């Protein structure tokens, strides 16, 4: 992205929100972001299909990798957050984790350089599915009324406190959870891209300055851009893990017997 801009010698300084909205490829339906999402979907499907085309008890490398992801989500996320009853959700959470991981990693893939999750629409979709999932699981397990009571009323609290606590619990369980889930992922990817833009474009801006000292100093900016790229890789994995873990945790509270 910044590459095109440098070639144009028309450096967009400072980086702005508009850098997140490149011109559409062909109308509002076919943009860089929608194409990247389709690419991610294709990559994940191809990876799992290829890895599990011919599964064996003693796995090949690809199969081992696919099973490692599944094992991580199954044992370290699903079972940890939801207990043994949550293992049936492990397949969905594995797909979710893989999709978020791949789309997040796009932020440091040369040529793509931005994650689709830097547009809030995609985190909203994923968070909405988790929202519906944990509500549905709760209602199905306990019934609508009991689930609402479980979610809103804290046991062992003097009754006047409920005037205060019920709105808070309602906000907490039915508003804040899905919103923060989507915002956290979006903001991390947005900020990560912005950081990379600042140091990369900033480096080019310094390089094209008239002052020799400023030109030399641009090296530090590029070094920082590289460091930030590694940092971004860490954030990409971490945010995928956090998103899935929190979703699993919410489903786990729906499955739980107590508040």
């Amino acid at each position, binding site marked *: 992205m910044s590459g095109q801009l440098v070639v144009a010698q028309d450096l967009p300084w400072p980086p702005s929100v508009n850098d997140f909205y490149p011109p559409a490829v062909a109308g509002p339906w076919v943009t860089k972001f*929608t194409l990247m999402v389709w690419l991610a979907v294709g990559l994940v499907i191809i990876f799992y299909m290829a890895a599990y085309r011919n599964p064996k008890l003693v796995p090949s490398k690809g199969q081992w990798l696919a099973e490692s992801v599944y094992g991580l989500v199954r044992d370290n996320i699903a079972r940890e957050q939801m207990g043994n009853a949550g293992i049936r959700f492990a397949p969905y959470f594995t797909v979710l984790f893989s999709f978020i991981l791949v789309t997040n990693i796009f932020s440091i893939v040369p040529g793509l350089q931005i994650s689709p999750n830097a547009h809030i629409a995609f985190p*909203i979709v994923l968070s909405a599915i988790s929202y519906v999932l944990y509500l549905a699981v709760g209602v199905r397990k306990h019934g609508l009324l009991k689930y609402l009571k479980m979610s809103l009323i804290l046991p062992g609290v003097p009754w006047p406190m409920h005037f205060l606590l019920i709105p808070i619990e309602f906000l907490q369980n039915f508003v804040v959870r899905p919103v923060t889930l989507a915002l956290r992922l979006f903001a991390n990817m947005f900020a990560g891209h912005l950081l990379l833009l600042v140091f990369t474009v900033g480096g080019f801006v310094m390089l094209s300055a008239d002052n020799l000292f400023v030109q030399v100093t641009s090296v530090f900016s590029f070094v920082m851009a590289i460091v930030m790229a590694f940092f971004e890789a860490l954030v990409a994995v971490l945010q995928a893990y956090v998103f899935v873990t929190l979703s699993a945790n919410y489903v786990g509270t729906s499955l739980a017997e107590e508040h």
Partner: protein
Amino acid sequence: MYLAAEGSHNPILPIWQELVVGTIAFALLVFVLLKFVMPRMETMYQARVDAIEGGLKRAEAAQAEANQLLEQYRAQLAEVRTEAARIRDDARADAEGVRQDILAKAREESDRIIAAGKEQLVAERTTIVRELRTEVGTLAVDLAGKIVGESLADEARRAGTVDRFLDGLESAGAR
């Protein structure tokens, strides 16, 4: 709203086309993987757990069986050793008995042979003495006849002279 053309965006507001695309694309991903891949993944996971735990159990069972067999063999070996020792002792005792028997028999036999030899010697001696006595008598009578000039044989025989003489000699020799 797709606002790219206008050039001003609020990053907090989603682009509705992206919501649609995101939903469809992710739904497709979830559908394909949950239908074709994940069930096999869980099956394989269980199969592997079974294989590993089953293998461990089988190994434990085999180990236990091997230990049991070893104990059995050791017991049998000890039994066999005791048995062998017993047989050896028996054989040794038997051999000793046989040896004693043979020795006793041999001693008996030798005693018997010696006794028989002695008896024979006595008998032969008696015979020889008797023959000698006759012969010596005859010779003496013949000699005496020759000296005296007439045959004393008949008379001597009648009188038992020679025998008496010889008896006298014997008793004198014995004295």
